[in-house]
């Protein structure tokens, strides 16, 4: 399951999407909206995506994981629209025969998602200001990883 959604994301749904009788290890990552960024109070977040391309890129990341670790049960979801503090913005689940690979694969999926999946975050601060978030320096130093 690779999905951009305006609905609330729960850990349970990504978990269910990867459950399999032959895979005894499920590793799940959930990113939630924090009440501050570097100490500055956040009112809420807004995410925008290019849905068809985002879902295509998620599926490509899953394919990379299958090639690297032989893992076949992978789910990725990302929320768009207005998100309140504490809500889940991104969820990744991986079910694998071995837990070590599961941890590696889940971490890898998150790293790649931040590199190549076309989704953008806008921070709306408690003081009313708002801005599209600029990526961290690493992004600019490694543009080749995006293509």
């Amino acid at each position, binding site marked *: 399951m690779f999905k951009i959604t305006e609905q609330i994301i729960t850990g349970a749904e990504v978990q269910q999407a990867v459950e399999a009788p032959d895979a005894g290890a499920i590793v799940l990552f959930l990113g939630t909206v924090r009440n501050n960024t570097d100490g500055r109070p956040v009112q809420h977040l807004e995410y925008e995506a290019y849905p068809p391309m985002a879902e295509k890129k998620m599926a490509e990341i899953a394919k990379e994981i299958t090639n690297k670790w032989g893992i076949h049960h992978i789910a990725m979801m990302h929320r768009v629209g207005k998100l309140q503090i504490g809500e889940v913005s991104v969820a990744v689940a991986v079910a694998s025969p071995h837990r070590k690979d599961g941890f590696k694969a889940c971490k890898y999926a998150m790293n790649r998602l931040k590199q190549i999946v*076309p989704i953008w975050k806008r921070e709306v601060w408690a003081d009313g200001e708002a801005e599209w978030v600029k990526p961290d320096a690493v992004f600019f130093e490694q543009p080749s990883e995006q293509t």
Partner: protein
Amino acid sequence: MKVTVKYFAVCHEMLNRSEEEMQLPEGSTVITILKRLEEEWPEIAEFYEVMQMSVNWEYATENTELTEGDEVALIPPVTGGTDV
């Protein structure tokens, strides 16, 4: 030929539209679109270094050739996921 061009996030905001159709001469590449946008929004040139383009949901280069009906997008640096 006619292509659709999509603008997201900061591009959407600067150009004040989320997509448009463009009529381009045969043999156009991605750079044809970039040049045209530069006339309307000169500052965009500064962003080209960090911005990417896509054609039909796949990352493209300036030299990617376009054909009738293509869906092109300006992809500002992505910041999805989480910052933690």
